[in-house]
């Protein structure tokens, strides 16, 4: 997994609440059996004027000039600024894969949907929850200043603005540790193999019907 330490990058504003995973990556693109290559279809319905298809050449499609990510000033953005309940809807991890494949490393919003939030950490992608008024201030600054960028320092748990303001964010220490070091969750869990086996053996005795096999 890719490490996350410090990220300084251009900010793109996604100014609507409840951006759901269907909007982030429409389901017709979920048919891939790989993890990579979802970036060109990120926000597909909003980003293009004509319908797409899995495997289609996206460079030939008509882009929607009004959509935020298509505006030249936001080209190359690595930090997404969003509104409340970002990532709601389905559990598809493809939403995170599409965001990272596009080039985003972090998303800032007042609140996230739980599954999306969880999935983010498995992919070296950092979801940052700031207070509503802080997010609001960032939106205003981002709209007002072309080339607006932020610096995210995971170790310090801060988002710093160009004029020196630093917003603190909370993060679970375990997740922070894994992200800073790029650690694989499965390997970490398997360090507790004996405990899992003991638990399993005890439960087989107590409640054997839970092990009725498919």
């Amino acid at each position, binding site marked *: 997994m890719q490490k996350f330490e410090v990220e300084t990058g251009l900010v793109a504003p996604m100014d609507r609440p409840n951006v*759901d995973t269907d909007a982030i990556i429409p389901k017709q693109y979920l048919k891939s*059996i790989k993890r990579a290559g979802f970036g060109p279809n990120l926000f597909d319905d909003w980003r293009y004027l004509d319908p797409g298809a899995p495997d289609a050449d996206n460079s030939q499609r008509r882009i929607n000039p009004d959509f935020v990510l298509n505006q030249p000033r936001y080209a190359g953005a690595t930090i997404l600024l969003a509104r409340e309940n970002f990532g709601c809807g389905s559990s*598809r991890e493809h939403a995170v894969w599409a965001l990272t494949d596009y080039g985003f490393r972090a998303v800032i919003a007042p609140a996230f949907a739980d*599954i999306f939030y969880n999935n983010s950490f*498995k*992919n070296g992608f950092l979801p940052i929850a700031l207070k509503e008024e802080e997010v609001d201030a960032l939106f205003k600054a981002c709209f007002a200043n072309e080339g607006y960028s932020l610096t995210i320092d995971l170790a310090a748990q801060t988002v710093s603005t160009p004029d020196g303001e630093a917003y603190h964010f909370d993060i679970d220490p375990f997740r922070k540790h894994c992200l800073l070091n790029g650690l694989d969750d499965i390997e970490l869990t398997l360090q*507790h193999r004996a*405990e899992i086996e003991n638990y399993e053996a005890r439960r087989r005795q107590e409640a054997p019907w*839970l092990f009725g096999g*498919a």
Partner: protein
Amino acid sequence: MAGKTLYDKVWDAHVVRSEEDGTALLYIDRHLIHEVTSPQAFEGLRLAGRQPWRVGSILGVADHNVPTTDRASGIADPVSRTQVDTLDANCTAFGITEFRMNDLRQGIVHVIGPEQGATLPGMTVVCGDSHTATHGAFGALAFGIGTSEVEHVMATQCLVQKKSKNMRVTVKGHVGPGVEGKDIVLAIIGELGTAGGTGYTIEFAGEAIADLSMEGRMTVCNMAIEAGARAGMVAVDQTTIDYVKNRPYGPTAAQWEAAVASWQDLHSDEDAVFDKEIVIDAATIKPQVTWGTSPEMVVPVDAVVPDPAAESDSVKASGMEKALAYMGISAGMPITDIAIDKVFIGSCTNSRIEDLRSAAAVIKGRRKADSVSVAMVVPGSGLVKQQAEKEGLDKIFTDAGFEWREPGCSMCLAMNADRLEPGERCASTSNRNFEGRQGQGGRTHLVSPAMAAAAAIAGHFVDARAF
């Protein structure tokens, strides 16, 4: 010390170890997999040279991409076919039980789990699908996970989890006739909002929930995720136990007594404390219809489309305006004036036998309106379909001009050939009315099976209780 909630009990019983910060390694009893969110997990297992920890805990089924007509000729769309073939190949390679497309037991993953007794009270159940919340109807702790977590559960039989907070939604008293589980949960979401349950596990309680059949409880828990909660739960009672009895993967006869005895504790203690409590008066709940592009945008059938101008929160108001523009309706319009083009009865929310019975009861002896181009019934599983045919429901539907299809997710998310065309409007018994959910540019109104059936007959929304 205060008592425990149902969620606390199931959680505590599954903690393998916990860290100081409250993170726990949680043991998973049942892992359901389908073709969309599993391929990359299998790919990960292979790359790392790992095997599934306990193959018998996994049950696989293809549901999202399968066609609902003419199955004998296979899957026409090559990309869909690749996904289903990949699941088949992975299940074979790892020795996982799978109900393949032409197996009578095949169906939507959240329908077949309970139907087979693969979902049992007190279990932890996961699936790479957010509507896994459905299984909470059995007093199980069930929630959706992402693909990396699918891989994690396969490799370790555990998940790294933080406990969520406890919320109880009590639906007090009894609902009137013609008000279904779907109406109850839509009314709850209307009250809570789509993010109101974020960070919580919701226990649904109260007489109106206890009155529901298991099918109705599954409908309610299914949509807990639409209120932002990863899991919804209902306490175990006799209704639960009766449903579970004699299911293929349930306890054997020799285990039955002990299993039932252990389930007696699967309810919140009297003195349990919830972080948040909501009480709704069942008598006030009417049949519901969503008008916008989020399940919280919902009103009773006798109401009018709400006005964004009356909303004080500006972010909300602009969301409402966008939704109205997308839906092509205007504020102040009576819900019953909204005409529909298509009807979809199906999905893991409402495709069980009781749902089909309820729709058939409305339709019987009537015909769909000519203005409704397609009315489709997609049973949740092959066994539901078989039961419905035994009861003659298929005949009622086809006589009324409805299409009777093969089981799968179908037009719930339009990954197969069943979809809305841009601008088409659908009365749907599914769970999500997001933009483009049922086909790009398609407009979805979420309703109960009876309401969808009534709309098909009338050509527009109408109070199903009048039928």
